[in-house]
């Protein structure tokens, strides 16, 4: 249920930091201690969706790229250990192709057991046409010789299914998202307080995601395979877990029972920015993409009116949700790049978010444009810290651990 955008208003910094399955409850030295010191185990990190990307392959517009990333804020030093995807989770892309609110097609990705931290998992990809194929994940085998150097052993491993033409990648990448969580949160706090100095907090220009890695699942799919009668496709990402899990001898987990949604993610504004009350946010997370979309309109309108956004901007933002929370992509609009350096409503010929979402789209500045009554406004972080790839999966290699001879630093 955690996605980055929840941080926007809530400052939910980091459930993702519980990437390690523990945190303690405490303690000190102690055995000595006269109270329980148990590892603190939080949340469901493997199921936390951070972002959804959905765009036409700039090299071949007959293909669409669908990618969701989960379990972020992986520190480079941890990348050798953070190899795996949860074998209990179904990672689902829900596709809406008929112009209503209900998803029409599904792509499910599941992962087999992980034998060791250095061995790849086998992913099974079930396509909307009923076909499926399997592919290995990419695991990081060794740190690069220098920070961010790319070794052959760590190359992103893409599998293309010859029968369907679908390509697949799953493994760690650099976190492609970029924006200043702190500055944005401070801006929002002041905005809600109607503090006229709010915009001053958008000048820090520090990319909160720079240097971190994330677990990425990406597909390159022929547009024709997922398109309906129209040219617009809606996409939503969801993670689901079997209602019941059975542990087999040796620790392997086998799920049973119906799949229950754990998290969902599409338009990167809905829950965190537009739905303001915490109770409503939780309610929003519990709903599915096909629930009535107007259920949260009043929250959205309230938010925009409260912060004195113009009616025009309010209506424009709310309009994004009219047919459910999907990232909608017009497949007839040609795309030639990943959106790096471009700005919504500023760059001529801009074709990105909210028309789908490319890795380089500055989604936060787009959101700020709406919040700022259709006037350009930015957080000062305009591009990702790492250069994107030129071919599928397009995301940058994961950030590598520091070199052994880097000077040690002191505790802060």
């Amino acid at each position, binding site marked *: 249920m955690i996605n980055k955008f929840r941080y926007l208003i809530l400052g939910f910094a980091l459930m993702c930091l519980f990437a390690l399955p523990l945190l*303690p409850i405490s303690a000190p030295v102690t*055995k000595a201690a006269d109270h329980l010191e148990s*590892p603190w185990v*939080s949340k*469901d990190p493997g199921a936390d969706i951070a972002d959804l990307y959905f765009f036409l392959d700039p090299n071949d517009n007959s293909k669409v790229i669908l990618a969701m990333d989960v379990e972020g804020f992986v520190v480079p030093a941890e990348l050798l250990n953070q190899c795996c995807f949860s074998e209990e989770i179904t990672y689902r892309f829900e596709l809406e192709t008929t112009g209503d609110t209900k998803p029409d097609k599904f792509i499910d990705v599941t992962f087999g057991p992980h034998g060791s*931290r250095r061995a790849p998992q086998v992913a099974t990809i079930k396509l909307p046409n009923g076909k499926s194929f399997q592919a290995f994940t990419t695991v990081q085998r060794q740190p690069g010789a220098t920070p961010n150097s790319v070794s052959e052993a760590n190359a992103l491993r893409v599998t293309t299914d010859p029968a369907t033409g679908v390509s697949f990648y799953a493994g760690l990448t650099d976190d492609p998202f970029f924006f200043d969580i702190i500055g944005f949160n401070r801006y929002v706090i002041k905005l809600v307080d109607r503090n006229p100095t709010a915009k001053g907090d958008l000048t820090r220009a520090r990319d909160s995601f720079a240097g971190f890695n994330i677990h990425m699942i990406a597909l390159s799919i022929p547009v024709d395979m997922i398109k309906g009668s129209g040219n617009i496709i809606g996409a939503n990402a969801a993670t689901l877990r079997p209602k019941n899990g059975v542990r087999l001898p*040796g620790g392997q987990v086998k799920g049973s029972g119906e799949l229950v949604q754990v998290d969902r993610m599409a338009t990167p504004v809905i829950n965190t920015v537009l739905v303001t009350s915490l109770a409503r946010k939780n309610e929003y997370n519990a709903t599915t993409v096909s629930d009535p979309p107007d259920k949260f309109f009043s929250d959205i309108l309230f938010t925009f009116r409260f912060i004195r956004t113009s009616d025009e901007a309010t209506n424009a933002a709310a309009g994004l949700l009219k047919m459910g929370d999907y990232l909608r992509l017009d497949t007839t609009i040609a795309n030639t790049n990943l959106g790096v350096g471009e700005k919504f409503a500023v760059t001529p010929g801009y074709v990105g978010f909210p028309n789908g979402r490319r890795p380089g789209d500055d989604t936060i500045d787009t959101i700020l444009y709406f919040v700022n009554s259709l006037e350009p406004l930015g957080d000062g972080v305009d591009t990702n810290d790492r250069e994107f790839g030129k071919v599928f999966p397009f995301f940058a290699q994961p950030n590598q*651990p520091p070199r052994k001879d880097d000077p040690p630093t002191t*505790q802060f």
Partner: protein
Amino acid sequence: MKTIFVITIVFSISFLFNSCTSNSSSSTKNQSLSSFSPTTVAEETNTEEETIRFLEDRIKRDPDDMISYNMLGERYLKRLRETGNLTYLSLAEKAAKESTRVLPPERNITGLSLMALTKYSSHEFAIARDEAEKLIALQPDQIYSYQVLGDALLELGDYEKAISIFKKMEKLGDNSPNAKFTLAIRVARIEKLKGSLAKAETSLLEALDIALSMKSPSRELIAWSNAQLADHYFSTGDYNKAENYYQQALKVFPDYFLAVAGLGQVKAAQGNLDQAVKQYEQAVGLIPDLTFVSTLGDLYKLTGKEKEAQQKYELVEQIAKISTLNGVLYNRSLAVFYANHDIKPLEAYTQVEKEFETRKDIYGADALAWTALKAGKLTEAQTAIKTALKLGTKDAKIFYHAGMIAQASGDSKTAKNYLEQALTLNPQFDPIQSLNAKKVLTQLGN
């Protein structure tokens, strides 16, 4: 104060754990430790250090990097659990403070969580409880909020409310391994408090099973889960099983201080005092924990090393008084040490009595009873020991204290009964105190 009756009713609720039925024994026997080879352990340590350095570097570059403060705080607490080094607790507290300075808790849920955790670790249970209540208000659907609150309430002795919180936690229906582990540990704890040792064992086995099934579990998680089982078996007098699980913990996490000392405890119980001394010397070398030092002193005494024993006893006091934080953390342990060794009886009693004003858990009541007895306050001891026994907890030390108080009260029958219970449950519950229990029981028998 809640009555025994009320508590009994509360505990009798068939709470939790349909999900905790398990095939634990078989799977535990089959637990695979292959992915925790020593090489991996070394790598994990190196990874942790690099991770901390990475995050500290980020903070140097951006002193308002709330995300790194939160991530660092978590890592510091993990290192604290792994090493027992209180420096990490201070660092975690600092990280929590900085995080909540950058953005207020209501907009910084993780910072608030970190603050609650550090307060719990610092034994500031009332503050931890209050912070956890704020967490629940902000995030009513997340189990970890309830975990902190429930744990803090247990430490404060508010068992009824703690159980209701854990029930709410269960009702959230989180089916993830993390949630199941969290619940299983809490069930084990509640069952142990109730005196339902078999159920506690089942839940601890379940927790270990779950931990082993997790995606990339840390060595600390596996070692801790094994050590919990070992502690349980030791407390029920099954020293062979206790040894086995401590050894499992050490396979996963060599030099894990809890297991090193735990194994020493087992060796002492098995009569192998030389090996027990070695284990405790190693444990004290890893971390000069007050209870480790105290037990090592006892073991020196039992092996005729009076001078070394005295040195360790002196060190115990120094450890407790070396810092304010140590004073808070070791307050109760120091008082029990005084009582066990007939040192400063009034000071010990006053110390525990003061703590008991705000922290009314059964172990606090037990410490109060024991120190009261040593301070010559028999009436207070009798009252306190009743509170310590109110949940039906089967703990050899509590039974021993109850027996000694009954003996001092002139109630030989009750004294004999409790001392027999203590020595039946865990014949070697303490290197010196168990000898005393046997001695008194023999006298009573005569």
